[in-house]
């Protein structure tokens, strides 16, 4: 079964503008405070995408319908909003798209905002962020 979160993270990683903004810091768990080369500088632009626990399960077809939480980090609120804006641009497509996951292609039916933005300061990392929720549908079986 396709990991839908991995598919959406890889979709975000495929976006050159977003990647340039966050310098490839896109993950399911932020790495602020992590020592070594894999750690993310505090503060810096980054994107964390993780399961929110919401979404309506598709009980009829092999499709994951999920709600995701996105934290768009930045050196300031303005910088965090730039990451948010680029993430929202990703959700503006009106057609399905493929994303690579573990050597196979995942079919993402849609990725849409499910809330408005909220400015927060991440309590653990102490970095400014825009919090927004997304909804997505990803096919469970490989598309190619």
């Amino acid at each position, binding site marked *: 079964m396709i990991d839908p979160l991995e598919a959406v993270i890889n979709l975000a990683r495929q976006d050159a503008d977003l990647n340039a903004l966050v310098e490839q810091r896109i993950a399911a768990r932020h790495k602020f405070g992590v020592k070594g080369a894999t750690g993310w500088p505090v503060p810096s632009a980054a994107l964390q995408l993780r399961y929110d626990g919401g979404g309506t399960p598709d009980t009829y077809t*092999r499709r994951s319908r999920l709600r995701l939480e996105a934290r768009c980090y930045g050196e300031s609120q303005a910088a965090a909003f730039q990451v948010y804006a680029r993430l929202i641009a990703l959700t503006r497509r*009106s*057609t399905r798209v493929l994303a690579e996951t573990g050597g196979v292609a995942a*079919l993402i039916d849609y990725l849409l905002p499910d809330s408005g933005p909220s400015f927060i300061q991440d309590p653990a990392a102490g970095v400014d962020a825009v919090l927004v929720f997304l909804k997505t*549908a990803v*096919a469970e079986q490989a*598309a190619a």
Partner: protein
Amino acid sequence: MASTEPFDQLTGTLKIYIAPQGEAIPAVNTTPAGNWVELGATDGEQSLEHAGENTYFRDNAHQGPVKGVRPEEDVIAHFTVVGLTLENYARILHQVSQVTAAGGPPATKKIPLKRGATLTEYALLLRGEAMSPYGIFPAMYVIPRGVFDGQPQPTFAKDGRPALECDFYVLEDDSQADADRMGWLIAQTA
């Protein structure tokens, strides 16, 4: 044939392209250009209605129907245009040649609200860039001849935006092959 899952479960919206009736139909994998114009942003769901009720015949020898026919049928495209340039507005009301521009000052564009007795015939494409049920390929409904039906009613509000609800009514196009006279659906497969 190989399974078409998951591509055969379609999701997404279509772009609406309009051209004068008789315009050449572009290939499915070609973005419409030239006299084909994208008819502005649309809001909400779009649909294609296959209308026409069947008539069933019975006889005294059977309890159930023994024959069915479809004496009339219609194809109607429904969508809502929110990109209200005067050019889009004019295409939906009558025709884009009704837009008159004046240099001013102030520079203006103007369209008459009277639609007139004669309906303008158009060709229409409803195209999805990844709407093929066989892969991430384009697909499109092609309507070679039709007219705008209905009574569009742009409504203005503090927290809303005016829109033109469109019902595009298909007319038979005798210049097409018999089966295609009321349009067709074409999808790229490879």
